[in-house]
């Protein structure tokens, strides 16, 4: 078992925990929303379960990111000018002294 698998196999909890998922997705759900989404997701997950039972002969095959199996091309390390400082900040909800400003984010 490699590094990747080891991390993935470390199962948290088998239960579907809408609160934890919402936290991971950074969405503050109301209680009503939680109930509704919990129900919706259960229905959808029940449907996609069909996949878990699927026996595939591709288990050992290399997975490609690109459906046409294109290989990644690398780009030369050459500068291209892009956004001006003003453009970069043009949509900022709040900014000061050329920086974006947000509520405190210290850990």
């Amino acid at each position, binding site marked *: 078992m490699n590094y990747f698998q080891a991390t993935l196999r470390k199962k948290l909890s088998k239960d579907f925990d809408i609160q934890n998922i919402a936290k991971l997705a950074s969405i503050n759900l109301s209680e009503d929303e939680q109930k509704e989404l919990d129900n919706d997701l259960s229905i959808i997950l029940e449907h996609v379960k069909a996949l878990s039972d699927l026996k595939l002969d591709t288990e050992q095959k290399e997975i490609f990111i690109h459906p046409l199996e294109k290989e990644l091309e690398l780009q030369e390390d050459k500068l291209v000018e892009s956004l001006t400082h003003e453009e970069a900040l043009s949509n900022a909800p709040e900014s000061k002294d050329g920086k974006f400003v947000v509520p*405190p984010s210290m850990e």
Partner: protein
Amino acid sequence: MSLQPTIGIETHIELNTNTKMFCRCGVVDTEDPNISLCPTCLGLPGALPVPNKKAIESITLLALSTGCEITRKGMFHRKNYFYPDLPKNYQISQFDLPVGLNGELEIVIEETTDNIQIERVHMEEDTGKSTHSGSGRIESATSTALDFNRSGVPLVEIVTKPVITSSKQAVAYIEELRQLAIDLNISEGRLEKGNLRFDANISVAPEGSSELGTKVEIKNMNSLRSLERAIDYEIERQTKAVEDGVEIIQETRHWDENKELTSTMRSKEGSADYRYFSDPDLPNMYLSEDFINQVKSSMPQLPKKQREELVDTGLTLKQANILSKSDVWIKSLYFKVHKQTKDSEASFNWITGELQGQMRKSSIEKLPEWFSYEYLSEIIELIKNSKISFTSAKVILSELLNTDTTPNEVAEQKNLFQENDTDKISEMIVQILEENQDVVDRIKTGEDKLVGFLVGQVMKQSNGSVNPGMAKELLLKKIKD
């Protein structure tokens, strides 16, 4: 019960590419915020990443030079977590298929070497920078300001296996890695600029135990000194906890530079779940044999090999290590001077000691144009042949750094050539002995060491032009007669 610490280190090295990892914005070193941005590194909707070839060459070079297996069929993953300075709220990184796996790096402590096992070397992108206003803890903070110039700068992450056993080893490892990055010319390697940043995972377990203790991650160590102190502190804290029967919890702790202690960091989420998955914007990355060979052919001499060559000139491992971690011009100066003088000890001492010392003192960054390495060889030869004293040699060197002249010219002008004429020295000695009769008496009763004082007097009287060895010999002869 004796407890043994185990340490693993994760290091991020900022590459010295012209442009960022996934866009062609410049990597800039400026205080002007948000001036090197495009839709990609600002995470604007619809923008896409395209990787930097130079960065992939650099990481491949690093992986090859640490003896890693190169992952020929690799890919990029998304590491998902929400943080305001991470524009996409995921970092493009590598997961199960990093560029390099299972390498090692030789480190030197005093006169011995050790191999630090490297688990992985992977490519990723940097975040923006946050500045917190208000003071101290989050309760009193008022806001956070964000500059995204650094967002998307290429980072190479090197993770060691948990094989480090002391803060000394940890420091030696970072020093070695830094030098490697500099020699490979893939990073500026400047710690104070954050070109190299490191976190340590530390645990303690009973000696001989096959299982590791609970690991604690230490962050915010900004210098080698804080790395050393933080590790020592944490080992002591954990050792005490185990001895007191207090449970060590798996957590991330913050090194406080001022208080010199580690403390629990506020955790934003219960447990980190980064939901790694392959980045659908970046197809599989295949490193061809041609590519790897081409990178190999550009590999310079590695620090380990340099050290071997230096030891072959007669230096100790410790000396060789110091030189291998010095600037390129110092290394080459050493080889040139050594080639002429065949004296490794003197060459090493004069270059790493006196020359660098004087330059530092006088804030000279570069050797002046007129300064030839042959001057150092000449100085060493002059001393060896007793033509000048060590003290005079220092004076000469200082002059050479400031004036376009030669060692012989300076010695001539300042009258620094040593008096080697026995008669003239004897004459001087008689006078000194008369003036210091009390000292002479004490030497006669066995306080031989005091002869040094008398030699000093002779040197002073002669403005250092007397050969001190001869002076001592003659003094003793006269006193004992």
